[in-house]
Structure formats: C-alpha cells, structure tokens
C-alpha cells in the first residue's frame, strides 16, 4: 500500500519546481501563433511556385506559424471545384487564390480586408480598375490582388513577319525602355495587318472558341468600340450601335483568321505562334517562353506590346488572381499577416523574376521591375507587357456589367459565340436577339 505521507525533502523539491515553472518567462514554441493553410494557384511556369513557397516559409519561421501550402491546378477547373466544395462545406483552407469572378461569387463568405488594402495601396501604389471591379464588393475590399497567375493577354507579334508583310515595325511602335509611339496602332491598322499577314500565309492566331483566351480578346475588342452587352447598372444593351459596330469589325477580322478559329482552345494560339504559322497572337508571355525553349529562332522574333485602339479607347485583357480569406478561417490574423508578406514589393519582385516575367502585380508602382526590361531574346521583349506607361486600360471581358451577370456572359462566352454565329451565316439581328435572350437569362437573382 502506498503511503500518503510527504517527506520534507520531497515537499521542498516540489515547491521549488513549481515556483520555477510559474516564474519562468513565456517561451514561444515553434508554432506558437497557430497554423494557417493556403490554397495557391499551381503555376504553369516550371519552378515558379518556388518563390511563393520560400516567401511563405520565411514568414512562417518569423511569425512562428505552422503553414500548410497546397498548389492547386486550374487544369480541369480543379481550383474552381475546390472553391465550390469549400464554400459548401464551410471548411478548408484559410486563404485561397480566387480567379477573377469568384470573389463576387463568394462575397458573403469572405473576410473584409480593407485594412490590408489601405496599407498595401499606400506601400505599392494604386491598383488598376479591374482589380477594383473584381475584389471590391459594396465598397469593401474582400480580396488582395495576387501576383502569381495575374496576367495581361496583349498581342505578341512576330517582328519579322509584321515588318515584311504588314509594314509595321512593332519594336519602333513599342520601343524597349520608352513610352509607346502607337497612335497609329488602331483597329483599322490591325485589320489591314491581319489581312496582309493572312494573304502572306501567316494569319493572326486569334481564336473564336469558348475558352478564356478567345473570350478575353473579344472582350477587349468590344470594349474598344464601347460595346457592352449589359451596362454597369444592369441594363441590357445588346442591341446598341456600339455592339453592331464591334460585331461588324469582328466579322471582317474573322475572314482573315484561321478557318478553324471557332474550335480553338487556350493551347491553340500558343501552338500557332511556336510553330511559326502566325504573325500575332494575344497571350501572356508563356507562349514566348515556350518558344524560347522549343523554337529559339521564333522566340528571337517575338515582341509583346499593347492592343490597338478603337473608337472608345485602347483596352487590354487583364485577368487577376485574388487572395481571399474565408470567413470560416480559424486564424484570420495570421492569414492577414501572410497576405501582407506576400504583397511586399520585394516578394512581388521575386515572384516576377522566378516566373520569367509572367506574373503581374496589380499595383502601379510595380510595373517597371527590371525583370521585364531585361528579359531576352530579343532584349526588352517583355518591357511593355505590364503596361508600364499606362497607355491602355486593363479590363476584363463583359465589364462593366454587374459582376454576377458579367461572370455568366464571360463563362458562357456569349461574345465569341455571337461572332461565330454571325460568321456562320446568321443575320446580325438574329444573333443580337439570341444574345439578348441569353443575357436576360443571366439576370435572375
């Protein structure tokens, strides 16, 4: 039987140990500030996730947070499925990289980040209008613009073919390190160049399919004509003069595009450029990067530049990723701290460098990083990619319609379908009536 008596020696020992424990200063454990999990977009560019990973690890080490990172591909819309599943289950990652429209789609499940955005705008400069349109809901910021994955899909031209067949010197029009001299780069010039290159056997590689590359180009061209299917107040404007004008211009352009353009997907334009069959495509620099690896002679002739101007201005397709914090996140302070670290100018510079210039910050002070100026061949080929002289408006197709309607117009590829239908012989009025009926369907709440 155990004795209950406590010896004097044992009592003193226990008392001393207890006193030491109580008076001991607070020691932060390895993960004293809890844990945070992030669903990042899985980058196309090999090794480009590394920059994000390193920035996160350094932050976690400093803040004593246990971080879990998942790089989720957008192939097969895996990221969209994960967003839908997490929104339904109200559980999952703390932070997620939302593509374009999905901040608005899940607005009531996202934590406001006005405090972060106020600070970040102070640090890095203002953000472009498209980020404002996509990440702000009812005047509140619900997401922070992410650099990885954000892109402009402007033209990437073949210097030699454009000079030889269309008489256009794209390097002179968009000189490296200088402001664009592109006043003559208009929709008319573009059309004439498309015709000349088509005649020479090097058609422009612009798709009329239902995937994002085709939709983005159509969106920017429609906006250059001031053509919106729905205006910012939600009023249907399909049967406007501007829409007819844009459609007529597109119908002319379509005659000079590859005959299979209505079947193009997002890989088609990349292949078109890399195979040397076309004089121009609209894409971020990933196709140039592939050409650099697989067809260096073609890469040497590539020059990324701005879109042509239409009667309503010069618009370029811009697709940002946005980091949002789910309202069910269990560690919002850590999530916010992480987003600040990821949005620091040094972190952004690193991301841009590792992604070979593909990633694009949304902040105005960060569009002149040395990566774009120094990238080659030819040197300066990406200088105008981030719109450093602000000479075009960065926009997303279907804007300025209210985002819940614009999302449907964009995802249903209404604009490219309109062009393809009209191209297939349907009368303009019938096409517009069809589009109007489709858009009416998107108005349901």
């Amino acid at each position, binding site marked *: 039987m155990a004795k209950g008596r406590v010896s004097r020696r044992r009592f003193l020992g226990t008392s001393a140990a207890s006193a030491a424990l109580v008076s001991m200063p607070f020691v932060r454990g390895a993960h004293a500030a809890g844990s945070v999990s992030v669903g990042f977009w899985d980058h196309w560019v090999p090794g480009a996730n590394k920059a994000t990973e390193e920035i996160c690890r350094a932050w976690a080490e400093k803040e004593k947070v246990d971080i879990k990172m998942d790089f989720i591909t957008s192939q097969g819309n895996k990221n*969209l499925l994960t967003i839908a599943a997490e929104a339904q289950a109200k559980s999952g990652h703390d932070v997620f990289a939302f593509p374009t429209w*999905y901040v608005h789609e899940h607005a009531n499940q996202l934590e406001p980040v006005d405090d972060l955005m106020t600070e970040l705008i102070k640090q890095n400069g203002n953000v472009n209008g498209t980020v404002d349109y996509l990440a702000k809901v009812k005047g509140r910021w619900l997401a922070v613009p992410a650099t990885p994955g954000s892109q402009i899909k402007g033209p990437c031209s073949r210097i030699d073919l454009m000079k030889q067949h269309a008489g256009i010197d794209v390097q002179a029009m968009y000189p490296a390190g200088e402001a664009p001299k592109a006043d003559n780069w208009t929709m008319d010039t573009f059309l004439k160049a498309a015709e000349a290159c088509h005649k020479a056997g090097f058609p422009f590689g612009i798709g009329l*399919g239902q995937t994002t590359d085709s939709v983005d180009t159509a969106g920017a061209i429609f906006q250059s004509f001031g053509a919106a299917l729905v205006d910012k107040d939600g009023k249907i404007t399909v049967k406007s003069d501007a829409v007819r004008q844009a459609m007529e211009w597109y119908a002319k352009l379509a005659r000079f595009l*590859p*005959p299979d*353009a209505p079947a193009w997907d997002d890989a088609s334009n990349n292949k078109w450029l890399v195979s040397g069959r076309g004089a121009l495509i609209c894409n971020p620099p990933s196709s140039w990067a592939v050409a650099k690896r697989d067809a260096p002679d073609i890469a040497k002739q590539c020059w990324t530049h701005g879109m042509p101007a239409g009667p309503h201005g010069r618009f370029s397709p811009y697709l940002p990723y946005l980091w949002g914090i789910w309202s069910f996140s269990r560690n919002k302070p850590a999530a916010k701290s992480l987003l600040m670290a990821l949005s620091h100018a040094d972190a952004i510079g690193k991301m841009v460098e590792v992604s070979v210039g593909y990633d694009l910050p949304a902040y105005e002070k960060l569009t002149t990083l040395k990566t774009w100026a120094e990238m080659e061949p030819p040197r300066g080929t990406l200088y105008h990619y981030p719109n450093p002289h602000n000479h075009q408006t960065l926009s997303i197709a279907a804007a300025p319609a209210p985002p*819940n309607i614009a999302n449907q117009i964009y995802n249903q590829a209404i604009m490219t379908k309109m062009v393809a239908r009209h191209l297939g012989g349907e009368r303009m009025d019938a096409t517009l009536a069809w589009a109007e009926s489709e858009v009416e369907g998107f108005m349901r709440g």
Partner: protein
Amino acid sequence: MSDLAVRHAAPGATSAKRERSRLRVFLRQRSTVAFLFTLPLILLVGVLVIYPAFYALHLATLNKRMERFVGLSNFTFLFTRETFWMVVRQSCIFAVSAVIFKALIGFTVAHLVHAIPAKGQRKWRGMLLVPWVIPPALSTLTWLWLFDPSYSAFNYVLAGIGIGPVPWTGDALWARVSVILVNIWYGAPFFMIMYLAALKSVPAELYEVAAIDGATFWQRLFYITLPMMRNIIAITTLFSLIVTFANFDIVWILTAGGPIDRTHVFATWAFRLGIQGGDIPLGASVSLVMIPLLAVAAIFILRDVNKRAERM
C-alpha cells in the same frame, strides 16, 4: 472436486452451445447474410450516390445565391431557355446514336471473336478490351490531338490522298460526329465482352439442330442467337444508355461543349453553369433533368426483361 467442476462447467457449455446454434440459425437466414455482405456497398451508395442526389435536389430548389427556397422555379426557368432544349436534343442524339453503334459494333465483333478458335481467342479479347480499360480522360486527349483544329493527324493523312481538311471540332456537325465516334470507340468493347459472354452461354445443341434443319446464318441469328441474348442486350443497352447520357469527360476534353454549344450534353452544360458560371442551383437542376428521362427508358427496358423472365 472433478464432479463439482463438471457441474460448474455444464451451464456455461450449454449457453455457449446455445449461442453458437443461434448464430447458425441467424446465418442460415440467407437474406440476413446477403444484407450483411451488401451492407458496405449500401453504405457507399448511400454516402456517394443517395446523399448527393438528395443534396442536388435540395440545391435545385434554391436561388442563385443559395440564400432562399424558390421551389421549382429553376426548372421552369430552364424550360424557357433555347439552349436547354438544344442540350436535351443533343444529349438524346449523342446517347442514342452512340449506344446503337456501340451495340452493333459490339455484336459484330463478339461474333467474330466467338468464331476464333479457343486457343487464340484470349489474346484478341485482351486487345479488343484495351480502349475500355484506358481511362477515358487519357485516351480522349490522344483523340484531341488527332482531331486538333490546326495539326490534326487525320487531316494530314487525308491531305495525302487529296481530301481537304475536315473541321473535326470546328464545325457543329463534325464536332458531334467526333464526340460520338470517340464514345463508340471507348464503349464498344464493353458491349463486345457482354455479348461474347452471352454467346458462350447459348447451348451449342440449338445450333446443331438448326444446322440439321438447314437453317441459314440469318435464321440462326434471328431465331436462336438474338432471342437467347435478348435479356443481356436489354440490360447492356440500359446500362450504357445511362452512362452515355451522363458522359462528361469525352465531350469536355474534346470540345468543351463547342462550337457554339453544339456538343453540350447535360453533364457538361451543368458544369459550365454550376461550377464555371457560379450558378450551382441551376447546374444542379440541369443534372437532375436527366433522371426522369432515364427513368422512362429504365422502366420500359426493365419491364420487358421482367416479362420475359416470368415467361421463362
């Protein structure tokens, strides 16, 4: 002492024996055992099929933001859409034509394989099953390269014999033909193996008697083979109709529903609306429309199978 031990042990032994016999009686009830064996599957079906189906039903009754109950208004909205009826038509064309061709090809190939001597038959069976064994997402990618708008391998070959490029996925008609073709390529081996199994179960004596009576090939086919295979044909057709109707991967990878929505089927359009377009209730409603259509087909086919089983 030993007596005592025996006397003490006896009640325990009796109860153990009783337990065992109770267990035996329990196990002899075949339905109970069958239920226990199928329980894991029932649970799986419950979790992965029944629950999602009811959840989809629930989702289909919500508004776009999933904030309030709207009854059947998602369905009534769908019925007013031109694209919806186009998808219904296309799904029917896709499923019915693919199943007919799969059945015809499967039936023909099953006969050819059946005619091969038993020694070499296994090799042929294995090779012919390859399309069905490869995950369709993977094999469809290969088909996509063959049909590629700009670099189609088929067009390259056709150009060699002077036939101009075929817009495999660029023209509505050809795109439909392409998705149906790939579905047939993928699904025909399933029909082949089912029909082959059915052919092997037809008693050889029937053919011998028919041969003595001087029956022709067609008479043997219509009066022996087809009646003996009728149940298998019906069940296989029903199964394939359901799977083909709900197909997603082949259409999505090959055309993503294009051009101009001309190859969308229920599943791809539901995905486009629900996941990509952020309108999950409407997407759920589209996917649920398949149920009554397939239920009608199932009722007719299964009723026919049951009638025949009763007659036999």
